[in-house]
């Protein structure tokens, strides 16, 4: 059964597509988005019930393999020390992200020129800067101007409060003379554009019932829909179809009832994240593209980058009220962000403060770490850690490696029989040194702040939140999948706008950059409408 032909078909309704659709809508083109998930109902988010903390390990777990919602697809990540974390819904993983929202540094776009590794991006910070600004206004970013780690920028809202825990850690950084700054956070600290102000619920990572966290289902999407964009949910795309002339002409998908349908389109835009996009490209084989759509370079799925995380937890002698306030937003440090050859590695990492956690999560962490045993010692052990911990995450830059990749699993399939992605990934030698350095420095900070004991995990297993590099940008068709504005080298009416585009990973959370890129691609399309396929 065929639907009408649309001008632009977007696959996926997460961070990037929301921004892209909102921008492109002003052209009055017929824009349709297909999303395999559904609209979320914030009144059913875990924080509305007594079981909120336990649900973070169940139907709101980071891993789709644990969550196993009908709209999720499985991921074979057994061959990776880092497990995939994502969410499938309108809003995508912004539903469950921490909303830690820094920009990339200018140097992140010039790794080859500055440090002799990886590749330069085909654009620079200055090119993206206006799109960062627009994105931060649309998402409502809280922060504080004057950060010496960045070129000047003006957050639109005041920063999230540090709280007792944040102040404690800030004093640790100050004692060492190291940089820290209130986090750039996509959280409304004041009422903003119809969103209520944050009330410091705490567990942002299971959806924000308050509506203060900027997930795109409550930011860009309502604005895009008002501009005429259409969004169909519970539609899972199986493949992109290719016409006789080698151009894409639409997609085949399964609707909510499982019926196979065809959607024709003049332009197709992929926004399925750094795993879902290569999966769909690789599953779209045709006479023109026997190895997967837009894959003449052989690079689709390759150069997968995460941010390997080192998690260092300090236990303090007094309670810190750590469960009060946004979990992953408080303060950040870029002391070790830029390359310093004396450290024994290139590039760097940032620190992100993790506040305390709820009682269930603390108990389960204590159980897995051996700090909170069962039996007669249980209560004393729990009392020594509950609300007395603070965590520092070292978010380490991952260099691209073509052997780190996404392929299609030969056996595992989703609910519609579509092959699942398989992840082959190893932490590189440079990243290992970054992780070790991060553990040592985080331990120093926590001790300077007064921690009695510390423990660490690196790389964190359940930390594959940032999915990048699997259809990267570039000017050379033999070394990249898309050009400098997201258009596939091999297919002039196919665009990619998600984290797959990233040439390098930087060392901060990528969502702000993903969305700035999506806005940039949309703007460039608008500027080239007359000769879009030339």
């Amino acid at each position, binding site marked *: 059964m065929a639907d009408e032909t649309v001008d632009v078909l977007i696959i996926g309704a997460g961070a990037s597509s929301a921004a892209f659709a909102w921008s492109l809508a002003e052209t009055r083109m017929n824009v349709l988005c297909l999303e395999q998930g559904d609209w979320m109902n914030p009144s059913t*988010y875990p*924080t*509305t*019930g*007594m*079981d*909120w*903390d*336990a649900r973070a*390990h169940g139907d709101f777990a980071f891993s789709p393999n644990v969550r196993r919602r009908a709209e999720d697809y499985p991921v074979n990540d057994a061959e990776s020390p880092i497990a995939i974390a994502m969410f499938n819904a309108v809003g995508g993983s912004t539903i469950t992200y921490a909303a830690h929202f820094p920009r990339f540094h*200018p*140097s992140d*776009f*010039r790794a080859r020129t*500055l440090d002799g590794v990886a590749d330069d991006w085909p654009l*620079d*910070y*200055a090119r993206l800067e206006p799109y960062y600004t627009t994105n931060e206004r649309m998402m409502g970013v809280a922060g*504080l101007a*004057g950060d*010496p*780690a*960045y070129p000047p920028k003006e957050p639109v809202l005041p*920063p999230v*409060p*540090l*709280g007792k825990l*944040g*102040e404690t850690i*800030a*004093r640790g950084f*100050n004692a060492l003379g190291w*940089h820290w*700054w*209130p986090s750039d956070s996509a959280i409304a600290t004041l009422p903003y554009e119809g969103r209520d102000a*944050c*009330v*410091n*619920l*705490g567990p942002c990572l299971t959806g924000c*019932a*308050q509506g203060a966290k900027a997930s795109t289902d409550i930011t860009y999407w309502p604005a895009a829909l008002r501009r005429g964009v259409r969004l169909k949910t519970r539609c899972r795309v199986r493949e992109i179809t290719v016409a006789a002339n080698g151009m894409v002409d639409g997609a085949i998908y399964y609707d909510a009832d499982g019926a196979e349908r065809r959607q024709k389109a003049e332009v197709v835009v992929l926004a399925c994240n750094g795993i879902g996009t290569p999966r769909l490209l690789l599953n779209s084989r045709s006479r023109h593209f026997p190895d997967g759509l837009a894959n003449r370079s052989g690079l689709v799925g390759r150069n997968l980058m995460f941010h390997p995380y080192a998690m260092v937890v300090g236990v303090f002698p007094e309670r810190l*009220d750590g*469960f*009060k*306030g946004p979990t992953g937003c408080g303060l950040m440090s870029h002391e070790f962000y*830029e390359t310093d050859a004396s450290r024994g590695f290139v590039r760097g990492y940032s620190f992100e403060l993790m506040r305390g956690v*709820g*009682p*269930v999560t603390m*108990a*389960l962490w204590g*159980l897995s770490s051996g700090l909170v045993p*069962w*039996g*007669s010692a*249980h*209560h004393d052990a729990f009392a020594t850690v*509950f*609300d007395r911990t603070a965590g520092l995450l070292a978010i380490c830059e991952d260099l691209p490696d073509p052997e780190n990749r996404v392929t299609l699993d030969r056996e595992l399939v989703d609910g519609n029989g579509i092959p699942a992605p398989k992840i082959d990934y190893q932490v590189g030698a440079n990243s290992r040194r970054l992780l070790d350095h991060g553990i040592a420095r985080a331990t120093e900070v926590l001790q300077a702040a007064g921690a009695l004991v510390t423990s660490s995990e690196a790389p964190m297993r359940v930390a594959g939140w940032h999915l990048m590099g699997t259809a990267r940008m570039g000017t050379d068709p033999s070394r990249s999948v898309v050009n400098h504005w997201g258009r596939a080298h091999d297919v002039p009416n196919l665009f990619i706008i998600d984290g797959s585009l990233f040439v390098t990973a930087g060392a901060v959370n990528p969502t702000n950059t993903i969305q700035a890129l999506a806005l940039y691609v949309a703007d460039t399309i608008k500027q080239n409408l007359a000769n879009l396929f030339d």
Partner: protein
Amino acid sequence: MTDDLDLTSDERHTLTCVLDELIPRSQDGRFPAAGELGLVAYVGRRMRQRPSLRATVRERLAALAVDARGRGASGFAALDHGDREAVLRQHEAAAPAFFAELLVEAYSGYYQHPRVLEALGLEARPPFPGGHRVEPSDLAVLLGSVRARPKMYRPG
């Protein structure tokens, strides 16, 4: 809470005793034991969502009874505290996957119970809609030395 495990009353009593050993009453009495809170129903409901574990629960409870009789007791519940713990340690070693699942459910159920939350000094309510009040910090003071630093970023 309903018990979906379809356990006999003896089995339910044994599981309650097991939970009491995993998380016992605190010495000062502020924290109740897990079985005392009626968590057998919670654990049962969670185990029911994993059919393979449901059968395993009954198998493990039966094995506990066998071990208890080997120690001269009529059942696990009849053992004293020291023997109960010793038997459970044996079972933890013999069936680590099951035991780990049981612990996860016991810990999860226990630390969301209103009586436990209150004993921890917390309000027994969900985070939403009340949230929490967090006082603002004096950033001018805390950030003074950082603000004074020269720019740290490299030009692109």
